[in-house]
C-alpha cells in the first residue's frame, strides 16, 4: 500500500536501504562505538568504508519512516514554560501522502496536507490559507541534502534501548562539531525507525526544546476516517500564500552562509498584509536559518523589531538595518551564529543598476 511519494529532497540513503534489508541494526551496532569520520578516505586500518554514510542512512531511514508509514497519535512540544499538544494522522493512499494535524491547545488550528499542498484552517477568521509545503515536519527530520551532515555533526546511535509512548526506541545522538549549531538527541522506533522523540540541545547540553509522541498507533490501527476535519469550511474564505522566486545575489546582496549551511530557498512573499518581503532560507540539513529583507521606511512606523539580538524560546533572532533595508535573521541556531551572519551580510548596489 505504501507507494513511493515524489521526493522533495535528495535521499542518499535509499539505494543503501534497498540493497540491505534490515541493515538498521547493523548500522546501530556499528555506530555505537565509533565516531563517524568526516574524511574516511584517509582513515587507515580496517575501518568499515561507509561509517559516515551509515550515519546518514540512519537519519534517512527516520525521514522515510515519517513519509511512508501510516501513523496517528498525539505529540507534545515543550519549550521553557510552554507546552502544547497536537494530534497527527498520517496515511498513505493511492494518491500519495495525506496528513491532518490538529493543534489541541490554545487557538484552534488545523493543517490538512495532501502531498505538498497544505490547507491551514483558521476557524476564528473562517479562512483557509493555501500553502505549499517546504520540507518535512515532526516526525520528519531532515531539511535538504543529508550528505554533508557528518562533516558538521558527529552522529552515533546508542545501544541501550529507551522507551517512548509505550514503544521501544533507539537513541541517536547528533553532536555539532562547531559552535555554529545546536545538537540533537533523537529516539527512533526500533521496529519502524519512526521518530518518537526529538530534543534540541544547546552547547551546555541543556535541552532547549523537545517534542515527543505521548500516544501512537501504527499501520492497520490507524483510522483513515480521522483525516476528515470537523470544521465545515465550505463558505470560508480561501487565501493563497503568494510567493515568487527571486535572485538576491543579482540584486547585490551577499549573505555569507555559516559553515555547512547552504541556500535551500529564495522567494519574495507577502507577510501579514505588509509589503513584499524577500526570504532566504539556509540549512545545514537539520537546522534552518531564515533571512528576511524588506525596505526600511524611516517614518514614525517603527515596528522593526527586534533591533539587535533577541530570543524567543528556542529561536534566536537578529534584526539590523543595512542601507535602506531592514534585515531580520532568525533560526534555531545559537545567537552568535545569527549575529555573525547579520554583521557580515553586505549590500552592494550594482553600478548602473536597473
Amino acid at each position, binding site marked *: 500500500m505504501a507507494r513511493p511519494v515524489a521526493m522533495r529532497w535528495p535521499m542518499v540513503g535509499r539505494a543503501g536501504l534497498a540493497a540491505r534489508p534490515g541493515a538498521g541494526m547493523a548500522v546501530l551496532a556499528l555506530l555505537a562505538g565509533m565516531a563517524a569520520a568526516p574524511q574516511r578516505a584517509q582513515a587507515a586500518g580496517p575501518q568499515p568504508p561507509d561509517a559516515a554514510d551509515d550515519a546518514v542512512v540512519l537519519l534517512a531511514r527516520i525521514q522515510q519512516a515519517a513519509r511512508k508509514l501510516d501513523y496517528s497519535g498525539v505529540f507534545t*512540544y515543550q519549550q521553557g514554560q510552554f507546552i502544547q499538544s497536537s494530534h497527527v494522522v498520517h496515511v498513505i493512499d493511492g494518491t500519495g501522502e495525506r496528513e491532518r494535524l490538529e493543534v489541541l491547545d490554545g487557538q484552534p488550528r488545523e493543517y490538512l496536507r495532501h502531498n505538498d499542498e497544505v490547507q491551514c484552517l483558521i476557524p476564528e477568521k473562517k479562512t483557509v490559507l493555501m500553502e505549499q509545503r517546504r520540507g518535512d515536519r515532526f516526525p*520528519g527530520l531532515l531539511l535538504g541534502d543529508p550528505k554533508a551532515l557528518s562533516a558538521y555533526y558527529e552522529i552515533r546511535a546508542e545501544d541501550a534501548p529507551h522507551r517512548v509512548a509505550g514503544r521501544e526506541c533507539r537513541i541517536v545522538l547528533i553532536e555539532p562539531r562547531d559552535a555554529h549549531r545546536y545538537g540533537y538527541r533523537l529516539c527512533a522506533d526500533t521496529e519502524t525507525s519512526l521518530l518518537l522523540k526529538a530534543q534540541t540541545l544547546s552547547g551546555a547540553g541543556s535541552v532547549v526544546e523537545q517534542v515527543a509522541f505521548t500516544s501512537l498507533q501504527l499501520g492497520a490501527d490507524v483510522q483513515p476516517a480521522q483525516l476528515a476535519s470537523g470544521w465545515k469550511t465550505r463558505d470560508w474564505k480561501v487565501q493563497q500564500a503568494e510567493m515568487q522566486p527571486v535572485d538576491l545575489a543579482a540584486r547585490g546582496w551577499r549573505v555569507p552562509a555559516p559553515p555547512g549551511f547552504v541556500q535551500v530557498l529564495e522567494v519574495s512573499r507577502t507577510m501579514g498584509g505588509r509589503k513584499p518581503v524577500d526570504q532566504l532560507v539556509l540549512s545545514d540539513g537539520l537546522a534552518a536559518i531564515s533571512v528576511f529583507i524588506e525596505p526600511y521606511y524611516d517614518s514614525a512606523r517603527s515596528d522593526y523589531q*527586534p533591533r539587535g539580538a533577541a530570543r524567543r524560546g528556542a529561536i534566536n533572532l537578529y534584526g539590523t538595518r543595512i542601507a535602506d533595508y531592514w534585515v531580520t535573521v532568525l533560526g534555531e541556531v545559537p545567537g552568535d551564529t545569527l549575529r555573525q551572519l547579520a554583521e557580515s551580510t553586505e549590500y552592494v548596489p550594482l553600478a548602473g543598476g536597473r
Partner: protein
Amino acid sequence: MRTAAESAETAEPVPWQESLSAWMDGETPGARPEGLSTPAGREAWETYHLIGDVLRNPELARGPSPALRQRLAQAIEAEMTIVAPRRRPLRVGLSGLAVAAAVASVVWMARPYFSAGDGGGEVQVMADAAGADAPALRDYLEAHRQMAGPSAVRQVSFDAGAGR
C-alpha cells in the same frame, strides 16, 4: 641567484608614472618628470591626488569588510604580477585600492546595535507564550515555520500569524 623582482627592476626602465608619483612624494627633488604636461600625465596627477585625498579623509577611513579585504588582496595580487619594484610598495597598494574601487563602489553593512563599551552581549528575550508576540515578530516566525522544515516546526502551532 637573482630573484624575479630584482631582475624586473634592473631590466626594465622606470615607467614615467613611477617617477611622477615619486616626484609628488618629494623623493626626486627638482627633476620635474617628463610627460606631466601631456593629457595622460595630467590625468595621472589628478588621480594620484584624488587617491591621496581619499586616504587622508577620516570619514572614509572606516574598516573595510572581510569580503572587501579579500577582493582587495586579490586585486593587489593581480597587480603584483605585473611589476613589483620593492622600492615603492605604497604605490602598488594604491593601485590595488583603485582596482578594488572599480569592482565595488559602495558596500553597505549592518550597523551594530551596541556601543563600544558594553560588549554587545545583551539579548532581548521576547515573550514565549502564544498571544504575547508583537504581530510583526509573529509573521517572521510563521514564515520561517512554513519554509524551514522540521526543526522550525516543532512549534508549528502556536505561531498563529498566518492569514491576517
